[in-house]
């Protein structure tokens, strides 16, 4: 069941049995938790292997192998996300945003990894936790940079006529403090769950058609769709990690400066 060697029951789309811990306990460790653990360990191992440095060679030479991969990813987050959305002042938030990117990417990519075939973020828990942490983080950044005025600056943008404030403030309040974390979580969760359901659907169809005599002719088309969607899900896994990270970066950037 854990390694996907047999097709799971349909209810496992929404609930995985615990590997240890009683059912419905707050610490029950299931397949989703295992995927999150592998995302942590996998990222750490990747960075540790890439960060090995016995000599000055990594500084003097062009990066290769795992170091090249990790440096490219870090440069992508640093230059392509943080500098673009916040500016050089936002580089201090690189650890949080890099953690978000790698954690989401690796948990997503388990959708197409044999014996797992389940994106960790196709369950609402992961996206909800990440969105809540991002929400707390950008509010904390706002208070740190603007003090308690941050809350007023967030809901009453500069330049808005006072007469419009009764209309704008509730909208901004809802948009900034309610919709942002909700949309972050639901976007990631819904995309990954939809992709997972698509792959499951075509897998079930392939299995069903394999046993059918006349409909066996349709099997290649279904199988091609399955292969194509698997490639598509790899792209979605990366894209959702990128979108979540860049939106978190935008929210943090908007908390740093009142004029945003």
């Amino acid at each position, binding site marked *: 069941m854990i390694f996907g060697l047999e097709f799971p029951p349909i209810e496992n789309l929404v609930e995985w049995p615990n590997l240890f811990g009683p059912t419905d306990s707050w610490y029950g460790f299931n397949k989703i*938790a295992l995927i999150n653990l592998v995302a942590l360990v996998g990222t*750490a191992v990747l960075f540790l292997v890439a960060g090995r440095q016995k000599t*000055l060679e990594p*500084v003097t030479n062009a990066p290769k192998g795992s170091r090249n991969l990790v440096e490219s990813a870090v440069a992508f987050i640093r230059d392509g996300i943080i500098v673009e959305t916040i500016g050089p002042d936002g580089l201090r938030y690189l650890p949080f945003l890099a953690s978000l990117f790698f954690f989401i990417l690796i948990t997503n990519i388990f959708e197409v990894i044999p014996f797992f075939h389940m994106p960790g973020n196709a369950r*609402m828990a992961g996206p909800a936790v990440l969105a809540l942490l991002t929400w707390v983080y950008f509010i904390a950044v706002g208070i740190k940079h603007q003090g308690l005025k941050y809350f007023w600056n967030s809901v009453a943008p500069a330049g808005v006529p006072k007469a419009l404030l009764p209309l704008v403030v509730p909208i901004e309040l809802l948009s900034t403090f309610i919709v942002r974390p909700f949309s972050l979580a639901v976007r990631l969760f819904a995309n990954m769950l939809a992709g997972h359901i698509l792959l499951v659907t075509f897998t*079930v169809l392939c299995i*069903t058609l394999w046993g059918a005599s006349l409909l066996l002719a349709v099997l290649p088309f279904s199988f091609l769709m399955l292969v194509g969607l698997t490639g598509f899900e790899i792209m979605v896994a990366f894209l959702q990690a990128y979108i979540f990270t860049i939106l978190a970066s935008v929210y943090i950037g908007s908390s740093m400066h009142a004029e945003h």
Partner: protein
Amino acid sequence: MLASILVLATEAATTTADNLLGQAAGDAKTVKNPILPTVNEMFWAAIFFIALWALMKFVLLPRITKVMDGRTDKVRDDLAAAEAAETERVAKLEQYEAGLAGARVEAVAILEASRAEGDAERRTQIAAAEAEVAAARAEAAAEIADAKARARSELTGSITDIAVGAAEAVIQKPLDRAAQGRIVEDYVNAAGQN
């Protein structure tokens, strides 16, 4: 054919869905809302993400960014060194070109001086050679004149002797040799002028 395939596909899909939903229906009371997160999954997700965040901040990223920053610094230093070397090269090139221009002017001056000196020497040598030639020519002319005078004198003497001898033989009496000699000499001189 296509219609029968579609009908069979619909039946197969319906059967599969019924089977799967049947499994779920048998345990309908335990199926949860797929939208709502479960506490245990949130707990572990939070634990593992915060652990990754801490590791990333204190252990993982510094090792990577240190090397990246070191490489950026090295590239910047190398670029600065390259720019300094380029500036130095341009300065040396200008210095070399200035020296080359000076040397070229100096070479032209030396060439002109050498050419003038050569011309003067050539003219001196030509003048000396011409003088030498003129002297040799004058000496040769004098020698020729002497030889001619000697030859004429000898010729005049011989002709006088022969002519006077022949005349004395014809007339059988001696003649005035000096007077005959002047007549022969005048004749030879007149013939030499023709």
